[in-house]
């Protein structure tokens, strides 16, 4: 039997000690499996669904909540995702105190460049999946080109990619 409070706290802990996306996965995996509140299949399904469904990828946790504990689980998971992010207000307040220090500009420039590097690793992680072949590279390049023009709706680009996938891989 699932205890809602402990269930919420496990999700909250995972979110609090994570930095976005799927980094809360190991903690949740360990805790929920240990309590037998989730199965391996629940994890595999929610990660796959998180990629398809609308909204940030991090919403995969809402899938996990729904699969393991229904609507209540989904709601608790969502709440656990949002609360730690409010700490950004504290981070922003701290930044305001130091932003005119001499070293801060260079420090933040380093962070910006590192974030670009991290984004490149995401691109790499996506295209190095086994199901992405040379046809996938062409689709990816075409999507990049279309998005670059700023004239084509993103949903339309993804829909076109889906149509291309339908004809290329069916």
């Amino acid at each position: 039997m699932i205890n809602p409070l402990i269930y919420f706290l496990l999700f909250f802990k995972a979110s609090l000690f994570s930095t976005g996306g799927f980094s809360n996965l190991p903690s949740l995996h360990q805790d929920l499996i240990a309590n037998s509140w989730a199965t391996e299949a629940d994890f595999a399904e929610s990660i796959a669904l998180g990629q398809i469904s609308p909204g940030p990828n991090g919403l995969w946790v809402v899938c996990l909540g729904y699969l393991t504990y229904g609507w209540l689980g989904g709601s608790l998971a969502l709440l656990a995702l949002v609360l730690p992010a409010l700490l950004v207000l504290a981070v922003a307040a701290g930044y305001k105190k130091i932003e005119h220090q001499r070293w801060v500009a260079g420090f933040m420039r380093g962070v910006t460049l590192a974030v670009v590097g991290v984004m490149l690793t995401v691109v790499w992680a996506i295209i190095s999946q086994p199901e992405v072949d040379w046809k996938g590279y062409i689709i990816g390049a075409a999507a990049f080109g279309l998005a670059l023009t700023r004239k084509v709706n993103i949903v339309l680009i993804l829909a076109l990619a889906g149509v291309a996938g339908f004809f290329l891989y069916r």
Partner: protein
Amino acid sequence: MDTIHEAPGAWKLLSIWGKIGLQSFGGGATTTLLIQRNFIDIHHWMTMEDFTQYWNLCVFTPGINLVALTILIGRKLAGTRGIIASLVGLLLPSAFITCLLTAGFQLIQSNHYVQAMLRGIIPATAGVMLLVGLNFSFPSIKQAYQEGLISLGASVLIILACAFAIIVFQLSVIPVLFAAAVIGMLVFTSWRVKHIVEQGTVLEEKEQPVHD
């Protein structure tokens, strides 16, 4: 300075973030690009520099970066009500649909045609992510270009070194961010300070909308 267009009310924010959430198929890259398009390109409520600065704060915040970003943009545009409207708009409709999708998952997953379409969509999200990265790097690369070749070379090198460290050596993101920050501090600050002071650059106070 760019003219700052009149800030939107909470209801307007709710509807914009709701549209962003519902159109964000394919994950965070799509969401990020939609945020850039809506708030920077279409409505001119913020600049790419604002966006970059906010994102830098978000990477040091626990949880999903995009949620933290939503909070900061909501607050900038409409205070506390803006935060609530933005979060509700981004998360509630998309989380609801996520649950519905989860409920219908067994039907979708086994379908061969759905799998084929997904194989097309996945690499397209990589293309979108690449554009998000380029957009993001643009202000600092432009600044480095104006400072000269050394600065530009150092910037590109830091980007590639971070990507390399994560992909090849499997380092986790936070130590890489801190290392790059310290390198950035050493490269872009110390020996440049005199130069900036001589030019008499005045730090501009950013206008901050007042909220009660």
